């Protein structure tokens, strides 16, 4: 399952999406809305995505994981729209025969998601200002070469 949604994300749906009889581990990751950034209070976040491309890129990440670890059970969901403090913005589930590979693959999935999946975050501060969050360093290190 690879999807962009406006609905509340639940742990059950991502876990069920990767359930498999040969799995000995399911690693779940949730990204949640933090109440501050570097100490500055956040009121809420707004996420925007390019859904068809985002879902395509999520599938590509799953293919990369399949090649690297031989893990074929990966699910990724990202929510868009207004999210309140504490809500789940993104979930990744990885089912694997053994936990070590599952943890690694889950970490990899989130790192890649931030690099190549077109999703943007707008931070609305408690003081009323708002801004599109600046890119993190990972992005600049992984820009594709321009020809």
């Amino acid at each position: 399952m690879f999807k962009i949604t406006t609905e509340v994300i639940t742990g059950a749906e991502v876990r069920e999406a990767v359930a498999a009889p040969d799995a000995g581990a399911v690693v779940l990751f949730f990204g949640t809305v933090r109440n501050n950034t570097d100490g500055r209070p956040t009121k809420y976040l707004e996420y925007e995505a390019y859904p068809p491309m985002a879902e395509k890129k999520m599938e590509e990440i799953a293919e990369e994981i399949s090649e690297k670890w031989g893990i074929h059970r990966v699910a990724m969901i990202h929510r868009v729209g207004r999210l309140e403090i504490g809500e789940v913005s993104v979930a990744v589930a990885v089912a694997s025969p053994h936990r070590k590979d599952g943890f690694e693959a889950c970490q990899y999935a989130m790192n890649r998601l931030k690099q190549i999946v077109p999703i943007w975050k707008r931070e609305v501060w408690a003081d009323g200002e708002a801004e599109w969050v600046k890119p993190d360093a990972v992005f600049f290190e992984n820009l594709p070469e321009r020809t």
Partner: protein
Amino acid sequence: MKVTVKYFAVCHEMLDRSEEEMQLPEGATVQTILKRLEEEWPEIAEFYEVMQMSVNWEYATENTELTEGDEVALIPPVTGGNNV
């Protein structure tokens, strides 16, 4: 030829629209679109250094050639936070 151009996040905000159809000459590339946008809004060029483009849901370069019906998007840096 006619293509659809989509704008997200900061680009959407700056250009004050989320998508539009553009009539382009034959042989046009992504660069043709970038130049046209720069004429309307010169400051957008500052973002070109860090911005990516896509054509039909795949990352592209300025030199990617366009064909009738293509869906082009300006992709400002994607974000999700540094330490999530």
